[in-house]
């Protein structure tokens, strides 16, 4: 059994800073992590490998430094790692991303494709379903439990007020949520192997055989036309200093305004 896991390296969003003048992301000094939902996807793939036997192939698209995320995935227990990196991939929206990833997926004979539900830098949850469609395979999103019976998966898909139990034949694409499992920490041996014995293979647009017009910014149907920092909505009254006085002032205002 072959399992493909698509992951994304993301900035640790709680530490994201925006340049107030250029309104772009300040990347210097911002730590990068494997996107949390993707880590659950990877953990589940490794769990299936341990239980049923499988080859886990981890793939990411990103700048050269995304190699770090792949090394971490190898250290956790993935068998092979591929980094899709090329200038023409830059600026891809979810459609162009899914299109590029689908070209990579088609190079393998896969049974399960795992993605995280969504990445914390974009929160779109779109790439998984878009990829499944490009590959013409079924999808189950928001997966919180996976069982294998022969060539069939029995998965629990979370809903707002419960869950569905879904039966689906492989090949299938699943998107993981954090309820699925608790990702392991890499072992010392795993880290050693990831850096000394395993390889991260680089894949360019030419390697994939994609038309540069179809990928990256050029292949993206959506365009970001402006970004603004959120406007100040209210001119607030801020109390500082002695806690007791602050609290009395606050409660007085709330009482005056009939809020409490």
């Amino acid at each position, binding site marked *: 059994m072959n399992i493909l896991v698509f992951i994304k390296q993301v900035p640790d969003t709680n530490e994201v800073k925006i340049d107030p003048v250029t309104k772009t992301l300040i990347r210097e000094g911002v730590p990068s992590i494997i996107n949390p939902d993707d880590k659950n996807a990877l953990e589940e793939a490794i769990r299936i490998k341990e239980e049923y036997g499988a080859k886990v192939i981890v793939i990411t698209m990103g700048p050269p430094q995304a190699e770090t995320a792949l090394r971490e995935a190898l250290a956790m227990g993935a068998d092979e790692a591929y980094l899709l990196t090329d200038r023409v991939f830059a600026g891809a929206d979810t459609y162009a991303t899914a299109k590029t990833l689908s070209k990579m997926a088609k190079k393998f004979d896969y049974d399960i494709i795992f993605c995280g539900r969504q990445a914390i830098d974009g929160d779109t949850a779109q790439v998984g*379903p878009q990829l499944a469609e490009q590959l013409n395979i079924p999808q189950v999103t928001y997966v919180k439990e996976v069982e294998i019976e022969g060539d069939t998966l029995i998965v629990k898909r979370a809903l707002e007020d*419960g869950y*569905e139990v879904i039966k689906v034949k492989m090949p299938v694409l699943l998107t993981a949520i954090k309820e699925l499992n608790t990702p392991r920490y890499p072992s010392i041996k795993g880290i050693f192997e990831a850096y000394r014995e395993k390889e991260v293979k680089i894949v360019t647009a030419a390697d994939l055989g994609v038309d540069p017009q179809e990928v990256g910014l050029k292949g993206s149907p959506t365009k970001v036309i402006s970004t603004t920092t959120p406007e100040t909505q209210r001119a*607030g009254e801020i109390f500082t200093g002695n806690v007791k006085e602050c609290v009395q002032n606050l409660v007085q205002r709330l009482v005056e305004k009939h809020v409490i």
Partner: protein
Amino acid sequence: MNEYKDIWVFAEQREQRLMNVSLEILGEARKLADKKGVKACAVLVGYGVKGLADELIKYGADVVYVIDNPLLKNYTTEGYAKVIADLVNELKPEVILYGATYIGRDLAPRIASRLHTGLTADCTGLDIDENGLLLQIRPAFGGNLIATIICPERRPQMATVRPGVMKKAPKDEKRKGEIIEIQANIKEGDIRTQIFDIIKEAKSKVNIEEADIIVSGGRGVGGAEGFKLIQQLADALGGVVGASRAAVDAGWISSDHQVGQTGKTVRPKLYVACGISGAIQHIAGMGNAKTIVAINKNPDAPIFKVADYGIVGDLFKVIPALIEEIKRIKNNEMA
């Protein structure tokens, strides 16, 4: 591209009941359609759902397309994607809106990918620009920026819209519209997933969306233990406990308390943000509260910019003092 017209909404129903967000996006579609001088249409998919079409008309639809078939009784990605994509290819709407539910977020990207068009997730604002394009507004980069996105060259322009952000139109019992039944071209083999069971879990006791007073805790609360203090303040005010994404992700409190872009959108009379820095991802969920109070030790925290009142200080000192003061005032009232 000029052959594409009309604004559609996916009228999501579950067990023959319309989702609230469907009526919200229909209200928005109505406004956008009026601005462009086109029709607002609802696409109603399911089995035994024709009866819901009138409701959609009363809430602003000019046309309701009903796709009713036993194979569409429960939502499946492939079943719904097929019948909707087929209808899009036939009738060519210019815009399609979906509620950003667990179903809408599964369905819309599948359809977008099939139609080779763009899709913007979880919009918090929509508008039409001078060229008639749909402006899709959403928070980006963890909510630190607001991005405006367009889909200039592909059709339809598609967006999911987060529940609780748009307003329903007032219900007009006398409103007239057209109901058009569409034959679904679908067979069993088109649907490769099989729903075995649908399990309802007991609805959580917290219903922060309907609370008048919410006291929320964030990263500054420091741990599950700190949320006891947040609960005490909520109790003193007669409110419920909310939380930022940071607190939920850290596992200090369950996700049904989460307020923000990836959580719930709330409009209470009073929102008290404790130890919450105020990323737009959070503000997207509570910015419409009537009165906002922020307690944070960092005077530069963005939450103070959206607050009506703020206290700069350590929440572990401020909240106990605040509880005491509230109790004192309430006791005085009673006396």
